[in-house]
């Protein structure tokens, strides 16, 4: 009768189920050693740093005996490999230890911060990616025209403006001078979708989204302009396709490169921005990291860095799998 022809011209690649499954499995397995390596680096970096975390919390008058007891209590007296493996085996079951400063479990502190950062970066992703894609596509399609130059100038400005500086300027204009929007913190207790809550997002989201918007716009422009120069685009025109159909072909061809850039930006945003979260006193991972660094709160620092790096590992994995959905050539041995 009739061959099983994938999902046709608009859809994703017709997926050869077994092959895609194998690829996904392989890719997930590859992530395990990467994750272990990342955890080792997280652990070691903090131990290579000079200074002793116990000195930071113990009173200056503490006797050497007390210091030794504290060290033993936190396990700092054991050899590095032993410390690493005991930390790792605890981490795997979700025990990130206890914060030295607050005495509360690291996991709880982290969970709150991660949720807050995810909310903020979710907004920044939405704004930054939409603007970046829009500007980049317009520029790529009109390469060399005034529209392209305007979009590119905007993108370069976006990349060049330090986001904490932009944050401060926004605060001065919209919070201090005009009192239209709050300068700091999150909406306390207000329902999530209410203006009382969302208004807290406006300024930090703008400050955070400008750099990813610029970076994405530039790489979309480059990729789209490059794809449009390829010979198959001429074939599409020779087929008599409408500009919209040609656009779909161009975008699907550009997708893998764009996913890679967006994945990276997503990773950065998920990590929270120490500077922007500090400017807006946003209780996210960046803010937490900042606190942990200045108080030399080793368990908290290790846990936070580990979780943030794991975001990267997971996002990379997701990007790789998504790329294979768009481009059949990627899924190879």
């Amino acid at each position, binding site marked *: 009768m009739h*061959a099983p022809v*994938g999902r046709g011209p608009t859809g994703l690649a017709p997926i050869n189920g077994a092959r895609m499954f194998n690829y996904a499995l392989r890719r997930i397995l590859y992530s395990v050693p990467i994750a272990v390596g990342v955890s080792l680096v997280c652990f070691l970096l903090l131990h290579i740093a000079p200074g002793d975390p116990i000195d930071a919390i113990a009173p200056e008058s503490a006797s050497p005996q007390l210091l030794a007891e504290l060290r033993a209590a936190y396990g700092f007296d054991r050899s590095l490999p032993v410390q690493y493996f005991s930390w790792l085996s605890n981490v795997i079951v979700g025990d990130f230890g206890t914060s030295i400063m607050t005495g509360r479990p690291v996991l709880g502190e982290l969970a709150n911060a991660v949720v807050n950062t995810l909310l903020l970066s979710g907004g920044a992703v939405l704004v930054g990616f939409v603007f970046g894609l829009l500007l980049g596509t317009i520029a790529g399609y009109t390469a060399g025209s005034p529209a392209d130059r305007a979009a590119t100038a905007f993108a370069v400005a976006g990349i060049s403006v330090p986001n904490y500086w932009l944050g401060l300027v926004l605060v001065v204009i919209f919070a201090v001078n005009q009192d239209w929007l709050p300068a700091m913190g999150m909406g306390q207790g207000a329902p999530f979708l209410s203006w009382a809550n969302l208004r807290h997002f406006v300024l930090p989201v703008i400050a955070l989204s400008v750099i990813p918007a610029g970076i994405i716009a530039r790489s979309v422009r480059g990729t789209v302009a490059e794809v449009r120069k390829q010979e*198959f685009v001429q*074939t599409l025109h*020779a087929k*008599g396709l409408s500009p919209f159909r040609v656009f779909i072909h161009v975008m699907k061809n550009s997708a893998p490169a764009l996913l890679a850039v967006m994945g990276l930006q997503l990773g950065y945003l998920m990590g929270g921005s120490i500077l922007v979260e500090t400017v807006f006193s946003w209780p996210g991972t960046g803010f937490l990291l900042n606190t942990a660094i200045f108080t030399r709160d080793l368990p908290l620092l290790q846990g936070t860095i580990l979780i943030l790096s794991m975001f990267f590992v997971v996002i990379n994995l997701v990007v790789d799998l998504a790329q294979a959905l768009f481009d*059949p050539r990627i899924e190879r041995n």
Partner: protein
Amino acid sequence: MQISPLKQTLPSAETPLVTVEDLRVRFRSRDFNVPVVNGVSFSLGKGEVLCLLGESGSGKSVTMRALMRLFPSTAVVSGKINVDGHDILGLSRSKLRAIRGAVVSMIFQEPMTSLDPVFTIGSQIAESVMFHEGASRRQAELRALELLELVQVPSAKRRLIAYPHELSGGLRQRAMIALALACRPKLLLADEPTTALDATVQIQILLLLRELQHELGMATIFVTHDLGVACEVADRVAVMYAGRFVEQGSITQVMDNPSHPYTQGLLRSTVHEGVRGVRLETIPGSPPDLAELPAGCSFAPRCGFVRPDCTMAVPHDATVGQGHSARCVLVG
């Protein structure tokens, strides 16, 4: 494989499918202004096969692409092109799209880069059918399957869901041909369709194209620099040099009685059967810089028969015989 004998040229009384009058194309931008086609006129009957022969840069590809107005944005075009009653150069963009791929379609030189790498062969063919004929996806996919069978792709069903990179060069070119034939065009344009292929595959593709052309009866324009290809498929030949037709006629007329010194040079510099040991001749010099064409005959600087009047004005198209002409002062 059954191959019908070469068709003879029949002077047809009916209106030709294609008429081109004084086509001129130049590429112009801030940095360059180069005339690439300098007054080309010809007509082509229904079902006829014309070969455009010439070196790279002689304007043959651009002349052919003009028939579907497929130009880079820097092209400045004048003249008249009529294909099947449509004024190609005057059509609105949307009317032009309705013609591209349906009335006139094109096979490109390099099937690897000319097919979209991230869509399956089947969906690329089906897309054309759906777009031009408003067919449902299912109908279009059925047609794609028929087409792949028509171009003799083995296990066509499996190839429908294959991507271009999963096929060999020959199969890819067959898929490209299937795509070009998807909406039963009246005019097929083939831009060096065998140049990028292995020698053995080249012959298969040529034979296939000739067979399909006979079977479907569409007019075909072949661009090639390969005389062997021209002899194999063409009813008529037009030899291009520096953006002009320097000689045109039936394949037998041009092969048996080449009248322009450039055509004669081309024939002498081609490997024939049974001439082993005979030294091949080359045409001295190199093609002219299109931006600074000499006045008069563009070939004069390389021509062994050059006379003073060659450089005065471009020679007019002189008749050699019935349907055979050459732009040379030595003719007529």
